[in-house]
């Protein structure tokens, strides 16, 4: 009896798997999105999804692509690489999507990219910054900076513009993004002639950074470079100020979120970040995105949402230009993307399928980003 109940459940579950996704409508274009919608990094996945959703709704209101509406399938991977791979496998083979948007984290993009490459389905990562991601094959694209570029930008800015020579690095040893950015920053900064006086680590989801900050303080750095995500940076900034560390804090595009100011408050004053765009940027693309995102979701967009929005729009642009929606045609059209005016800047894709766009340096003043300068690649 027990055996039958077990067997029955199993067969039922399996039948689920085999029967789903058999319907394919011809009047819509189906794209796939995979990300971590649950688990420790859910907030990143959900933000990105919101950005993509907005882009899809806008294109559908505008009449779709060559008359066809766009629809999206979203799969969660709970932050696990093996599930990321499985969900891409499902998107391609069961749902027959024409293109894939995702993942935020480089680790999961690296796990899933070979699948997309194998089936020749274009995949655009909104914010995987590790250089390895697009090396997985010629169907893999990205619309964000790569770590070496951003690390170099911040190192040069700190050394040349701010004239600070002694750096301390506080990095997230769990996050690939943070480790990569910290490494490239260190490399450029020491090449320029600066010194790294301390290099400390934390792990994402930590809340107490006082031990690291206290020992950083004794090394008397001119500034602290914190290549992390806004989820931790707010608390780091607060605790640094509590301990009497008044030096500037520098960071990357991972900081970009309204939550940063909410959690960090005044402690963030006198900090600099490199980012894709400035919210005060008068360019119509930026302003339109910010207002419509706010109208749709009730919150200010963060960096991940805008990257997702741009990734989707670049894909739509390519779909309009491509002769057909075949993987190879779409890929060719994507590879030719040039001077695309997106919310995160003017994007061109180079021969490595990486985005070439200028970075802006922003200063945080009284709970707002202030534009400082633009650095061209």
């Amino acid at each position, binding site marked *: 009896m027990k055996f039958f109940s077990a067997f029955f459940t199993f067969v039922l579950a399996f039948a689920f798997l085999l029967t789903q996704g058999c319907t394919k409508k011809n009047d819509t274009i189906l794209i796939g999105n995979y990300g971590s919608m*649950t688990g420790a990094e859910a907030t990143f996945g959900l933000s990105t999804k919101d950005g993509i959703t907005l882009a899809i709704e806008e294109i559908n209101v505008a009449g779709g692509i060559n008359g066809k509406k766009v629809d999206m399938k979203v799969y969660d991977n709970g932050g696990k690489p093996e599930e990321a791979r499985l969900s891409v496998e499902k998107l391609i083979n069961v749902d027959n999507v024409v293109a894939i948007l995702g993942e935020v984290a480089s680790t999961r993009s690296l796990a899933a990219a070979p699948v997309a490459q194998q089936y020749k389905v274009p995949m655009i990562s909104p914010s995987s910054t590790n250089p390895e991601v697009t090396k997985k094959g010629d169907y893999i694209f990205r619309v964000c900076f790569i770590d070496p570029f951003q690390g170099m930008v911040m190192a040069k800015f700190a050394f040349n513009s701010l004239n600070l020579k002694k750096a301390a690095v506080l990095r997230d040893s769990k996050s690939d993004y943070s480790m990569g950015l910290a490494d490239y920053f260190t490399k450029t900064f020491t090449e320029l002639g600066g010194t790294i006086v301390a290099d400390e680590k*934390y*792990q994402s989801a930590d*809340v*107490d950074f006082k*031990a690291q900050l206290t020992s950083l303080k004794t090394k008397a750095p001119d500034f602290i470079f914190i290549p992390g995500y806004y*989820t931790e940076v707010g608390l780091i900034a607060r605790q640094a100020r*509590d301990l*009497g560390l008044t030096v500037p804090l520098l960071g990357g595009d991972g900081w970009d979120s309204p939550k940063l100011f909410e959690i960090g408050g005044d402690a963030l004053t006198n900090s600099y970040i490199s980012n894709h765009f400035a919210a005060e940027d008068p360019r119509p693309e930026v302003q339109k995105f910010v207002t419509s995102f706010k109208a749709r979701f009730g919150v200010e967009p963060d960096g991940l949402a805008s990257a997702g929005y741009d990734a989707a729009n670049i894909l739509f642009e390519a779909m309009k230009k491509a002769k057909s929606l075949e993987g190879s045609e779409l890929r060719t059209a994507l590879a030719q993307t040039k001077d695309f005016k997106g919310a995160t800047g003017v994007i061109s894709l180079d021969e490595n399928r990486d985005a070439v766009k200028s970075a802006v340096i922003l200063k945080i003043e009284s709970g707002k980003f202030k534009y400082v300068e633009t650095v061209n690649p």
Partner: protein
Amino acid sequence: MEEFIQHTINGLSLGSIYALVALGYTMVFGVLQLINFAHGDIFMVGSFFGLYAMRFFAPHFQPGPVLAILVMGCAMTASAVLGVLIEHLGYKPMRRAPRINILITAIGISLFLEYGGQLVFGASPQFFPPFFEKTQFHIFDSVTIDSNQISIFLIACLLMTALQFLVFKTQFGRSMRALSHSLDTANLIGINVNQVIRITFMLGSTLAGAAGVLYALAYPKVEPLMGVLPGLKAFVAAVLGGIGNITGAVIGALILGLSETYVAGYISSTYRDALAFIILIIVLLVRPSGLLGKKRIEKV
């Protein structure tokens, strides 16, 4: 020297946070011999309810003691209700089940609260506004300590004393202790076992709720998975002190907080998260019943 004092202050304040969570853990374990994995998540729900109470009351009250009591009260009530609910629906049907089954149930409930939290509260971290203006004190030149750190430390000590009193000096405490020796015997001598367990759970969850709000005061960021790490660390602290032992939990938590801070500050921050487990392993291998725990003799 100043660095050392600063590290010690940081370590003690971190330890007292762990202690707040560990107290509830150890109390439930002491009575039921049950590792309540959901404790960390009740703690999370507590701080979220604190946040909502804060948003509700903040327009009407100035930051100060009244607001503090209101917020704490809401958080503690909500988590007490949740605790009793979990006990009634999850653990009560399993009273005679093997330990491992109860543990799996606990893990299941914990996962349920975490993923449910991500759905209900949203996955992104939220800011917890302070209901008490904190003041910074400077000792020497560069050593700082703030009022939050001091009050959390004092509250942890106070709660420890109160619980100690409850367990060893009151009638209810006596039934709790009887229960921890043997469920059947306690039943036979006329103790309402279910009620004692329910109240123990309620107390433990209330503590978790209070800890959640105080935690959010010290680290003003609340998110649905915030309970996982403190839960694990607090468990380690409780085991370190001898699980089931109230003073032991606080001492274990302080030792854990201090050693984490010293190691991260002086040796390397790389293995900071592994440290809690390394300590746990060493303590259990050298002294399996913890620092203050009593040795249990197994009989055939």
